[in-house]
């Protein structure tokens, strides 16, 4: 309550000076346990206040963790801003429902149990990985209307087989989520070697598909991206879904306090918007306002859900890929590390293919494996023709 009182007082004083303001507050209380050479538990307690203030069409943005002495600072910054009629502070909407908190979760007990379940304390050192458990409280307060808040439970697991580059990961808002069991039960198999070359139809596992989509397709939704924006092909359906119950990336309201809802993506991918961006570019407000870490209010996707009616089988399933560092996303090399044959044989491979993200989005088809959630992306396996070299 103390926090809300501080913010209320600040907003009242701002209004007295003629400043319209929205404050997005995020408080994180999580324990992150990382096992590399040693097991290190880190309790992370963080409170960030993201302030957007507008007066006379001039806007400023501020990231801070306390509001004392901030009004004078805002006044100074406002004097340096340039007028833009698109700058506005909008009224938040009332919260309809929020289901992202697991009321049964006791973070203090859960992280120890999950470290144990992932066998990160196994003296053989076979497993490394990460466990994160905690809660994030999000709220929006504004000079223009009543505020709203919600709590999101966050559970994140990663398990890595030391020595082999094999890993499984998942995040959720609920301990009982089967997607978490996938990580806990992950156990590597003995790997032979499989040689592959030439032109071939590959089926990318949901994990590999999600990695590629997160890296290559998600940025196409950012307003700042100047690179190519692809077109969703006939074989896929894509939805930006902020309301997925088990995803900790879900949110009932965006960073300006507007109620979120799923958006079906059809045809060419267009960038997402917030109130200012939508006015500036004369587009509908997609209610995707997001503060990014550098202290800028922009728009970002939450969860991307891919579905497909086609169930095309690939000659092999790509189970793991190597690291891709993409500087401009126009063309990437995808190194394949682990493949599984249709016969069930699994093995390491040393081959790669070149991928153009725009073509990937247009030509890929749904595969035979059911959808799974990895980070912000939920997808079935995806099948595409590639040339291996």
């Amino acid at each position, binding site marked *: 309550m103390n926090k809300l009182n501080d913010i209320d007082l600040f907003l009242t004083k701002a209004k007295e000076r003629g400043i319209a303001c929205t404050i997005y507050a995020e408080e994180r209380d999580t324990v992150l346990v990382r096992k590399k050479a040693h097991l290190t538990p880190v309790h992370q*307690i963080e409170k960030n206040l993201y302030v957007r203030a507008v007066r006379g069409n001039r806007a400023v943005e501020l*990231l*801070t963790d306390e509001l004392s002495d901030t009004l004078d600072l805002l006044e100074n910054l406002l004097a340096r801003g340039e007028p833009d009629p698109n700058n506005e502070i909008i009224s938040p909407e009332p919260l309809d429902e929020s289901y992202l908190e697991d009321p049964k979760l006791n973070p203090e007990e859960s992280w120890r149990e999950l470290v144990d379940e992932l066998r990160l304390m196994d003296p053989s050192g076979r497993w490394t990985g990460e466990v994160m458990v905690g809660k994030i409280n999000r709220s929006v307060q504004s000079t223009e209307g009543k505020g709203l808040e919600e709590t999101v439970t966050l559970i994140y697991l990663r398990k890595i087989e030391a020595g082999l580059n094999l890993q499984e990961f998942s995040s959720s808002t609920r301990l009982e989520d089967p997607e978490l069991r996938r990580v806990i039960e992950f156990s590597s198999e003995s790997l032979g070697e499989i040689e592959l070359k030439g032109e071939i139809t590959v089926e990318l596992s949901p994990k590999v598909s999600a990695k590629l989509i997160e890296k290559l397709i998600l940025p196409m939704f950012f307003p700042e991206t100047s690179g190519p924006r692809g077109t969703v092909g006939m074989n896929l359906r894509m939805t930006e879904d902020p309301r997925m119950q088990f995803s900790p990336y879900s949110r009932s309201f965006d960073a300006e306090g507007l109620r979120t809802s799923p958006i079906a993506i059809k045809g060419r991918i267009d960038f997402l918007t917030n109130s200012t961006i939508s006015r500036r570019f004369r587009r509908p407000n997609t209610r995707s306002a997001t503060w990014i870490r550098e202290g800028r209010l922009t728009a970002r996707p939450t969860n991307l859900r891919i579905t497909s009616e086609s169930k095309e089988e690939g000659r092999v399933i790509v189970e793991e890929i190597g690291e891709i560092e993409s500087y401009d996303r126009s063309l990437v090399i995808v190194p394949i590390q682990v493949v599984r044959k249709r016969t069930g044989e699994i093995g390491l491979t040393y081959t790669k293919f070149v991928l153009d993200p725009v073509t990937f989005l247009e030509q890929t088809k749904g595969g035979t494996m059911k959808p799974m959630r990895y980070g912000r992306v939920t997808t079935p396996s995806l099948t595409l023709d590639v040339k291996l070299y």
Partner: protein
Amino acid sequence: MILDQGRKILEEITSSGAEFADLRAEFVNSNIIRLGEGIPRRRNEKGLLVRGLFRGNWGVVSTNQLDNVKGGEVAKLSFGDERGKVVRLKPAKIELSSPIDEGLSIYSLLQDLPKIKDVEVELIEEDWKKEYLSTDEREIEQRWKFFFIKIGDGEEWRVTGGLVPPSPEIVEKLVDEALEMRTMERKASWFNNYPKRILLTPRLVSKLLLLWIKTASPEPPDQLKIDERVGVEHVQVKDLPAPLSSASNLFVDDEGVEGRELTLISNGVLINVMTDRSSSAYYGLRPTGNGRASTIGGVPSPTPRNIVFQCEGDTLDQIEGELNQQDLILLRLRNVSLMGNQIELIGDGKIGEVDKVVRTKLELNLKNFLQNIIECSKDLYTSIEWIGRIPIKVTTPFILLR
């Protein structure tokens, strides 16, 4: 000012049974202007990292809520049956501050700037204060202010910085370079032949060198191959304590360790690795002062500070003069993918003396890339690369690779 409160926290941790404890507080105030956007931005950030080692088990609290940390909470977190150690240091009290002209501001630059179109320009000023305290009685305070300029040509940001804001002339020069790069890449056509030799710009050498350094500090450490030949005879790579005039200001690292000059590669042979206090104890080495956190209030890990890469060579003009049509000058990386030691690149460049822009795909063995050097330029160039929030100063020549 955090130090008094910090002493109390360390006492609480020690009385809970810790054999070692330390804390680091950071305060960073930044002003940011993205040209043409008209929205001034400000970040007031702080972070506190408190660590305790209890019978070989770490407990750590990381927070920006400085008033809420209790030593007992750190003890409650320690967990497991680890055998963690930390290298102990002699007591020391150090205060470092770069000369700070409070009147200097990025806003003073704005009025003199020419109208800039087609590239994104971001001006940033950061005012840093770090305080460190440990149970081995090390007390360190550092303060500096730094100015960055980031130029984005639509896809990649290039960063430069200094103790004073960049002059309008420097901004114009960087903008011209970014525009030239954009024009160049629009003209690029695929080059499907394997070039005989590749000339890498210092920027690309910096990127590859940082990737190489990452692989040179393996976990587990039994894969560490000290005294192994990793480069041609005349390759020298050092990591220096960053001077106060550097963006990667780190005379003392994030664990209170004074930086020392560290020769990583001497005459082509790997002779040292970077360590933090924990990995030093693990390796049985003297700490190198490379414990750096990539976020404010984050946990430190071995990270470069100020890399200087040298090898004997000719002038750049001489090297370029010897190139022919089978050689490629690689100017920009579009994609890097790593598979073990094998590195695959897609990049844009020019073929030999012909002014034709090509896009090409190359394979390099990261482990051997320093062994394939044919020649280096005599002149060195400095750029700033980033790992999270940490700027890393990298000084390299142009290199011609086989």
